[in-house]
């Protein structure tokens, strides 16, 4: 099976975020990491390749810094990478990101495309489904298991409140992967060494410009959310905090 994995670089979970001058985006001088479900999507692709042979290709769109996620994926075992490299890619909405991906892979023949179920920065939860529609492929979302069979694949979808559902579908298809579908591997030293010789195909904004259009949605402003609840801060040394808390638990909340 030939599998494409979309992997996005996002600010690290506990990176302190500051607004930039436009107040429509953040200052980009923060630390980054791979979007969490995308790491699970890569792991799943590698496992499928180990079972069925084939190829795993990773793709990202973003500035030079985002090459790091491709490097890590190659070190973990991906065969090659595609980098849509330009600062402008950061500002695309899900519709245009998917259009750029579709244009970048138009000469390839994948059996499966994996994306994460949503990104930690925009959180659109849309890019994979849009890409499927642009390619004319079926899709399934929030996937927790994938088995190949004679006619295609059987996937396990997560539904709300602890429910699941198996879905049979033909290939090629797009799947959006849920965190926790598998256990992540670490890159080995040999893997890191081998990654240096693996190809990264660069795609410029100009290469895909004719395929993308203006954004269909616009962030007018970004801001720190206003608090609606009155929160009391409990401060002091750990011992003092413990005393104050226990006093509240006993005398105000009456749970002790």
């Amino acid at each position, binding site marked *: 099976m030939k599998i494409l994995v979309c992997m996005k670089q996002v600010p690290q979970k506990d990176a302190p975020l500051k607004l930039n001058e436009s107040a429509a985006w953040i200052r980009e001088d923060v630390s980054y990491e791979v979007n969490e479900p995308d790491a699970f999507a890569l792991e799943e692709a590698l496992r499928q390749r180990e079972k069925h042979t084939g190829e795993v290709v990773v793709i990202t769109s973003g500035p030079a810094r985002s090459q790091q996620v491709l490097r890590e994926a190659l070190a973990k075992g991906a065969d090659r990478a595609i980098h849509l490299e330009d600062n402008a890619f950061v500002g695309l909405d899900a519709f245009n990101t998917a259009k750029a991906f579709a244009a970048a892979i138009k000469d390839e023949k994948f059996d499966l495309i994996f994306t994460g179920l949503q990104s930690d920065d925009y959180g659109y939860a*849309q890019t994979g489904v849009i890409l499927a529609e642009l390619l004319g492929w079926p899709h399934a979302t929030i996937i927790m298991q994938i088995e190949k069979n004679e006619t295609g694949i059987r996937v396990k979808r997560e539904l709300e409140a602890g429910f699941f559902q198996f*879905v049979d579908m033909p290939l090629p298809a797009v799947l959006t992967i849920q965190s926790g579908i598998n256990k992540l591997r670490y890159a080995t030293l040999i893997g890191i060494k081998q990654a240096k010789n693996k190809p990264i195909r660069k795609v410029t904004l100009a290469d895909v410009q004719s395929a993308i259009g203006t954004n269909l*949605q616009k962030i007018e402003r970004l801001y720190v959310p206003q608090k609606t609840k009155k929160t009391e801060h409990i*401060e002091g040394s750990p011992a003092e905090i413990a005393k104050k808390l226990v006093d509240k638990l006993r005398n105000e909340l009456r749970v*002790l």
Partner: protein
Amino acid sequence: MPDTILVVVEQREGKLNRVSWETITAAQAIAVATGWTIEAAVAGTKTSALAAEVAAKKVAKVYAVESPKLEPYTPDAFAAALKQLITAKQPKLVLMPHTYQVRDFVPKLATAMGRAVISDCIGFKHENGKLLFTRQMFQGKLAADVSFASDAPWFATFQNGAFRGDQAEAGASPAAIETVQAEIADSVIRNKPQDVFKEAKQAVDLTQAEVIVSVGRGIKEQKNIEMVKQLAEALGGELAASRPICDSGWLPMDRQIGSSGQTVAPKLYLALGISGAIQHIVGMKGARTIIAVNKDSEAPIFEIADYAIVGNLFDIVPPLTEEVKKVKAGS
């Protein structure tokens, strides 16, 4: 003719998903601000009773979108049916709840129409004639006001809990119901869904717990869970966790709180090293009192906490457990 808002409600096996009422409340608020009218649609096989239920609300009209192909749910059939309806009725704005089902088909539907979805919104603003939708970004650390930059139809989905379903206004008289037959060719549907099921039976029922001590990724390692367990025991409460803890197998799945786990409403919910992602919060925001310990003063969990302790949980938890034990021994 004024512009219309079309609310697509969600049903499963002949029952309306209650978040549908929240979306109706949202539409009614937008209608007040804009002067637009509201229509609703329900799609499925036996929709007339559901359509009648929705028609009792203050809406101008309800479409019962019918086709045998709509059962069981597939994204292909739903996108096809709703595209036909939207093309025929030309609403300005299409609203839906941000459920797992909607996120499965609405990006496809909008893309098929060359349009965008502003997803998972928590509110709206109407400023100088412009409609803005507010949504969380960066896992709730920031919020954004987002506008549509394309022609109608516009699509937006609302987060679970963004509006109050019980505030959906009833109409003076039942709205008209129009049955619409959707034409869906066999070849359109590519996925074959099997029956919906629940995994192994739950061993613990956290919904009845009065005190829940819940642990998140701030706990760092599996062996540190023991420390939290001791606090839970001292308090006479149940141990629970955020999803990554259960995904890692550090605690069993049935102790997971959130949209894909249990929904709880204890007297006290103590959140230790949990950031407060919306999917976690929907499972515990009904707690009477929320105490959060997090080393990041800007963690979103503090937005809903009654008591905030900004600090290292490894410093706070052991003395807290000791103090609880001491007080209990004394009483």
